[in-house]
């Protein structure tokens, strides 16, 4: 996500990490250097945020963790809040790309909800530091961060609404606030697991969350049978591979 591997320099002075650029003149293009440094700073934000939380995170922590100089940090970012928002935007962009991709591949409301929810839960499970930063710490990172978060949630709600509108006649749609309420509910379920460090368990909740989302649009019967099928699907049978 934040690629940092660089050709190993033979000039290893001052116990520099392999990804750190050699000090002084190194003949690498300026834009490459700047990109590399920016990526390292953003990666460090996730690590420090995960370890210390937003409130106690300092620019000093980020500088030390990323291995850039303080000068370089301030060339790129104005403040702790500024760098946090940049990191948040970067991670959210990746997350939305994954979710949209799954959504676009799928046909029909049920498949679209299932596959995008699965992409979301898998991302959170695979990236605990990013999850912590974007789902938990965001709530303590000030009004600009909260505004970003609200926008991300609105984007997810729109996806559900579009999928529903594509499939169902207007008369069959639930109240207008439903999608927003569902996204909020998923958020809270995910938040509580990430807060407890149990993000890895989230993909197991796919059947139950799928039930919750599908219910207002497709009704009790469809939602319940989906719940059962999805639960069966995720249970590995003895001696067989689990279905994907």
């Amino acid at each position, binding site marked *: 996500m934040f690629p940092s591997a660089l050709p190993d320099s033979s000039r290893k002075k001052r116990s520099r990490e392999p990804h750190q650029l050699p000090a002084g003149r190194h003949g690498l293009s300026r834009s490459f250097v700047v990109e590399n440094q920016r990526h390292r700073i953003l990666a460090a934000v996730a690590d420090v945020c995960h370890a210390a939380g937003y409130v106690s995170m300092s620019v000093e922590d980020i500088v030390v963790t990323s291995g850039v100089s303080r000068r370089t940090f301030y060339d790129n970012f104005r403040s702790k809040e500024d760098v946090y928002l940049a990191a948040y935007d970067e991670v959210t962009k990746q997350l939305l790309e994954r979710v949209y991709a799954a959504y676009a591949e799928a046909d029909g409301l049920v498949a679209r909800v299932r596959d995008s929810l699965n992409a979301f839960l898998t991302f959170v499970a695979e990236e605990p530091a990013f999850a912590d930063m974007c789902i938990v710490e965001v709530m303590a990172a*000030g009004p600009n961060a909260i505004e970003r978060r609200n926008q991300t949630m609105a984007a997810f709600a729109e996806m559900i609404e579009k999928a529903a509108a594509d499939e169902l006649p207007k008369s069959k749609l639930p109240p*207008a606030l439903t999608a927003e309420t569902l996204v909020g509910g998923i958020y809270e379920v995910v938040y509580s697991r990430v807060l407890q460090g149990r993000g890895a368990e989230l993909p197991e909740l796919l059947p139950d969350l799928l039930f919750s989302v599908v*219910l207002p649009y497709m009704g009790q019967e469809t939602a319940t049978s989906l719940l059962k099928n999805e639960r069966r699907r995720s249970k590995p049978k003895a001696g067989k591979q689990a279905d994907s």
Partner: protein
Amino acid sequence: MRCSSRLAQSEKQKYVLTVEHRTSHNRAPHQLPAGRHGLPRAFVVSNQRERILDAVLQAASRSGYAAMRIEDVIAIAGVSRRTFYDHFANKEEAFLAAYELVLEQLLTGVTSAFASGETWTSSVRRGLAAFLNLLASEPVLAQVCVVEALAAGPRALARRTEAMEAFQTLLRPPDDDVLVTSYAPPVALEAIVGGIYEVIYSRVTSQRTHELPTLLPSLLHSALLPFVGAEVAEAEYQRTTLSAAQRAIPTP
């Protein structure tokens, strides 16, 4: 905007700070005279503690928990720094105590409204209505409970989780309720409470706390649907929308 506390109404009036009434010692009317004043210590202490808690609510809702300073709290409360630290070890302790106070108020209001319903569905409707109305009528309480508690550290978060679980209990129907026709997994219930919370959160953080009562029909629908089925949930939605219209409350 003041937040209610457990004090009698007449006591609350004393807490309105009016600059023009300050004495030569720059003391507001509710502030106790400095030094020996012959009042029982217990009264003085309880009065001070209440004022500090009230001030914490004001300060936290105005500036946010992170930016809230003890200077702000003691200025609003009209107590000395020393007095603050007599009662609370630090900012977090004071916030937790204030949060506890307003959470209790909220939960009491909701559970008593809930208990007044004759069926589970009407209990949910009354409880949810009370919840939304209380938040809308007490913006300081709303800001503290809904927004600031999430930014006040792990103990506040833990307390919040407990409160959410208490709400979940109310939103789970008794097994023998006649209208309850279907099963919903526990995570679905968690998602309902979470979803209601998030919708409220978005209104409070965008200065639309006053709109909360208009959300009742839709939030009620979400809460009932998994248990009573689409027809009953829809009927409750329509009925609640209709009665709101009758009371001339706009619905979205």
